[in-house]
């Protein structure tokens, strides 16, 4: 043992809080861009609604802005890109600062990942508030009756599950590789080429089996948008919905 008086490590709470703040700072520019995009979209929607009200339009014409299952797509895309902001300038080859801190490497990385996810969920809430607010405002301006949303509950859940899945999908190559785009592109291209080749060689059953990764009951389309086989909406196919149902049933 040593006679030197040793210094303590920081508390997990301090590190987690600071990671949350630091990741928020890292994503600040993206956040400003996101809010600016929502503001621009609001202006366009309000402008369109005002124009619709003042200009003559055929009877029965309708202008509305409603949330549906495809409404999760923007947040899914943001979720896909968010890890690049969270780990900015920190590919594994340049991550020695993060690793040289007095915290175990694995938990430290998880804290950073989780911080990014929390910010993503905050952005999702802001996005949903925008959607609700904008659709409410549009219905008031166009005086098209009582505002209401037609989306099912599971479609609202998609707004959280879709970006979460996107975030996790991209986080894996971003955290573990110096060339995440190569991995992402490589996997997507290999998947497409494989399916195309199986079809070209008449191996339709094999192609269908592989395609379940995207279109199957538990495929990406079902997980992200609640759709299977290119569009049939089925709320029970949503992973998020199934998770909620499982929780409610205590499974």
């Amino acid at each position, binding site marked *: *043992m*040593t*006679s*030197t*008086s*040793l*210094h*303590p*490590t*920081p508390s997990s709470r*301090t*590190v987690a809080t*600071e990671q949350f703040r*630091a990741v928020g*700072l*890292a994503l600040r520019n993206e956040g400003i861009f996101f809010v600016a995009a929502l503001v621009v979209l609001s202006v366009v929607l309000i402008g369109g609604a005002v124009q619709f009200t003042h200009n003559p339009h055929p009877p029965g014409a309708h202008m509305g802005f409603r949330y549906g299952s495809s409404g999760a797509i923007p947040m899914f895309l943001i979720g896909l890109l968010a890890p690049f902001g969270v780990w*900015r*300038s*920190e590919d594994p080859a*340049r991550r*020695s*600062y993060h*690793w*040289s*801190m*007095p*915290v*175990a*490497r694995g938990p430290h990385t998880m804290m950073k990942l989780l911080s990014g996810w929390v910010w993503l969920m905050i952005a999702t809430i802001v996005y949903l508030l925008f959607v609700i607010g904008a659709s409410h405002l549009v219905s008031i301006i166009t005086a098209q009756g009582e505002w209401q949303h037609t989306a099912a509950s599971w479609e609202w859940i998609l707004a959280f599950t879709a970006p979460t899945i996107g975030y996790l999908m991209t986080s894996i190559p971003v955290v573990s590789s110096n060339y995440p785009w190569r991995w992402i592109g490589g996997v997507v291209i290999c998947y497409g080429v494989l399916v195309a080749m199986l079809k070209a060689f008449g191996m339709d059953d094999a192609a269908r089996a592989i395609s379940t990764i995207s279109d199957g009951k538990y495929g990406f389309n079902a997980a992200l948008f609640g759709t299977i086989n290119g569009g049939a909406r089925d709320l029970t196919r949503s992973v998020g919905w199934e998770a909620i149902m499982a929780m409610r049933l205590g499974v």
Partner: protein
Amino acid sequence: MTSSLPTRLRDGELAVDTRGLTKRFGDQVALNDVTLQVPTDAVYLLVGPNGAGKSTTLKVLLDLVRAEKGTAEVFGLSTRERAPEVRANVGYVPERPDWGYGWMRVGRLLEHHALYYPTWDATYAARLAQKFELRMDRKMGVLSKGQARRVHLTMALAHRPPLLLLDEPTDGLDPFMRDETLGVIADHLSESPTTVVLSTHHVEEVEGLADHIGVLRNGALRAQMSRDDLDANLRRYRVEVPDGWNGVASLDGTVLRRVATPREVQWTVWGPESEIVQKLTSAGGTVREVARLSLIDATLALLNPND
């Protein structure tokens, strides 16, 4: 020839104790059976040419790089099993200037760093920032190498760690700031009891600081010793020799450097002075001068591949 240079220190409490560290990067040997012994409160100068394994050794101590063989302990803590505790007690200045977040402003990075070190001394950090003329509003990514190095030094010193690992701490600094930085390190050592492992190519700058030296070449620790040992045992001998002189066979393994002219030979030899002089004289040489070596000359002699 086999070297008689010392590679083990005498007994005493060690701040850093590695045993048989071996690390390869592909087919290149970065460290080969390195047993580094840094006594507590020592200023240990680690020297070697580029690619000798100095930076890798420091990274192993922080568990940034893992050795394939061997063990490393810092203050008795395994660097592998208790890495966070080890890192809490180390102030590190890396060789690379892009360490830290390039998108963060200097002031925010210091704030970020401070939260990871409960012993962070904010007053001292402010004093260091003033000495190093840090501009808190600038982003790390736009700083020059020298400016980044000064930020890194502030980060390393301000939590007053018991161990400093400084990898080329004055690299990229102008002469004035280099002098200022060495003064800050000297002041720090006088204020806080600290063990320092310092890797630098500017050996002459740390002549007054270093009290131990380790010499790495091709990933192997060629020698390590205290300055007292170095000063006591390393000499340059100017010897006048007769025509057709055959040399001194008994000095094999202790001669680090040999420069010959027709009637005179200069030897840099490791060993007790009286013994060497006696061997040279009894072999027929006439010793004209015996000189001590400066740290830089001693380093060059110890690094000499002719051993």
